[in-house]
């Protein structure tokens, strides 16, 4: 079976709301849930402050200590930190060269395309350890 990530309603609503509220800047955050073989299930999302020091229209950065806090929150809730999300304001959902060069092969990376302030589409990527490629994995979110 190929890798797949599903996001539940509560987590997805938080991710989209955070991405839309942060528009026209990029947002970022963590996804918590559990992993069963090749299937990841996200049941909780955590908004994290974009700590990039320049213009944030096309850049984001996570403070490691914020990620550590998210990991602690996950452990306390009996969940795992399984992914990272960020938005691309007025851009499609792809994994850019900047995304690749600053990625970590341990997590799923969900990219939300936000156009004109509204959610448009999303994809999930799995960057490799060499930071040279990030194949897509199947992403399932609640459609309303």
């Amino acid at each position, binding site marked *: 079976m190929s890798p797949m990530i599903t996001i539940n309603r509560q987590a997805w609503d938080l991710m989209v709301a955070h991405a839309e509220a942060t528009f026209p800047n990029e947002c970022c955050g963590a996804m918590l849930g559990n992993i069963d073989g090749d299937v990841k299930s996200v049941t909780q999302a955590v908004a994290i402050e974009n700590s990039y020091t320049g213009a944030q229209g096309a850049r984001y950065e996570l403070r490691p200590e914020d990620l550590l806090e998210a990991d602690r929150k*996950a452990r306390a809730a009996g969940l795992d930190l399984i992914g990272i999300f960020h938005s691309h304001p007025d851009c499609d959902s792809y994994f850019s060269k900047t995304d690749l060069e600053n990625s970590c092969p341990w*997590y799923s990376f969900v990219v939300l395309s936000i156009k004109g302030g509204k959610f448009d589409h999303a994809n999930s990527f799995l960057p490799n*350890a060499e930071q040279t490629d990030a194949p897509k994995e199947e992403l399932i979110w609640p459609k309303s």
Partner: protein
Amino acid sequence: MAKVLIPTPLRQFADKKDSVELTGATVAEVLGALTTQFPSLKKQLFTDEGKLRSFVNVYLNDEDIRYLQKDATPVAATDTLSIVPSIAGGAQ
């Protein structure tokens, strides 16, 4: 024994454990004990030259060891080490 918290995706290389108790007087000794016990973790955390990978940060409790004494930071039995990646990006 100091405690090392293992990030979810690395537990497959550590007998599925979410934390490991290890002996060591410094960060380097504890991480050495970790990769001796779980050799396949070494490639995840260290380069072939034996340096921590660029995206790997190590926290002693709440402090980044980069701002302490790096590898040589003393570790007490009550301390917890966490492995935290650096992550950034952008559409352009």
